[in-house]
Every structure is written in structure tokens, then in C-alpha cells.
């Protein structure tokens, strides 16, 4: 298992995606990490270990090659932007949805979703974008049916 710096991890991850384009899968795992470097002993005390709360562990593999990185709160902003772009750029082999009513709906939903997410309050935002999207869909289909 190769532990890399965030930037190097992103580069290697891009390479993994490119390698697996013709066949194979890319597995990415995300988990909260508390900074421990030693396994927990079965008995006896853990030696003065202070669990850190602000890190997460990211792993990626194509079944053969393994890479990993630790992201902390200081790097998360920069890393997250680059990581999101990477995912979006590479996971482009999926089917595109039916164009007619979906383009209107997805544009409206995307605009609403980005505005809601930007305003923070992530758990609340998870519920609210659902409600604006559903009234928009029947309105869009009614409009196309009328035409």
C-alpha cells in the first residue's frame, strides 16, 4: 500500500482511471481516520495515543495497484475541488439520460442544489433540494404536453 501526498495521489488516481478505461474497475474507499499508526493491543494500555478528529483516509485501487492518502481539514478545500473535477472528468462513460424533460429539470435542480450547498447547512440541504425538484418535473412535462 503506497501512502502518497494529496497531489501525488490525485495524479496516480488519474492514471488508474486511464488505465482501466478498456477493462477493469476502479475502487475508491473513503473513511474517517484518527491518526493511529499502531494497531490497538488486545490487552494492556494504548500508549498515550491522542486520537485526531480531523482527518480522513482515501484509498484507491484497480485490483492490482494500491494507493492511499490522508486528507486533513487544512488540505480538504483544495483537495476536494481537484478531486471532484477528477471524478467528474473520468466517470464519463455512463449513459446520458433522456434529453427532453431531463435537461430542464437537471438545470433547475443543479442551480437550486448548488445554491443550497453553498449556503452550508449540509444536512438540511439534503432534504430541501428534493422538494423544489419534484414540482418542477410535473410543470416541465405539462409544458411539453401542451405543445
Amino acid at each position: 500500500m503506497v501512502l502518497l501526498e494529496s497531489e501525488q495521489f490525485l495524479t496516480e488516481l488519474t492514471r488508474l482511471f486511464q488505465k482501466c478505461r478498456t477493462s477493469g474497475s476502479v475502487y475508491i474507499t473513503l473513511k474517517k481516520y484518527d491518526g493511529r499508526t499502531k494497531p490497538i493491543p488486545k490487552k494492556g494500555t494504548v500508549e498515550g495515543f491522542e486520537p485526531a478528529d480531523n482527518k480522513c483516509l482515501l484509498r484507491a485501487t484497480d485490483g492490482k495497484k494500491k494507493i492511499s492518502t490522508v486528507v486533513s481539514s487544512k488540505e480538504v478545500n483544495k483537495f476536494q475541488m481537484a478531486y471532484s473535477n477528477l471524478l467528474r472528468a473520468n466517470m464519463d462513460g455512463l449513459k446520458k439520460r433522456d434529453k427532453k424533460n431531463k435537461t430542464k429539470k437537471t438545470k433547475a435542480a443543479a442551480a437550486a442544489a448548488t445554491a443550497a450547498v453553498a449556503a452550508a447547512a449540509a444536512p438540511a440541504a439534503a432534504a430541501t433540494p428534493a422538494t423544489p425538484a419534484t414540482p418542477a418535473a410535473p410543470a416541465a412535462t405539462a409544458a411539453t404536453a401542451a405543445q
Partner: protein
Amino acid sequence: MPQYQTWEEFSRAAEKLYLADPMKARVVLKYRHSDGNLCVKVTDDLCLVYKTEQAQDVKKIEKFHSQLMRLMVAKESRNVTMETE
């Protein structure tokens, strides 16, 4: 291993599962370009799965991933004071 058909249900259940035990829960993302599908699994030994072949779900999944990442690195204020001392 419940498999969800709608993204809404899956993301809500997944977030609840993570918040129940943040240290134990993990998110696995499996992408197959040759087959053109994407599979998301959130587990803490109990699994929730969501599979898709739709391009529109990629954005949602990627946002979800980022959201969870932020949750995991949150509570930084407490740690920053500890580090400076």
C-alpha cells in the same frame, strides 16, 4: 444488503449510517468504464448499496463523496487549539 433504487433514499440512509458511528462507517465507490456503470456502497458491516448507469448520477455521487469527506474532517476548531498548545 439493501440496494436502493432512488438516490434520495440512499443518500439519506447513508448519512444516517455514517453519523451513527463515524469511525466505523466507510464509503466504497466502484467504477467500471468498460461496463459503463458506477456502484456506491456505504457500510459499517451493514451495507447500503446504490448502483447506476446514468451520467446524471455521477455529479450527485461526487457531491455526496465530498460532503462526507467534509463531515469526516470537521471538528477542526477543537483540534487546532490542541495542536497550538
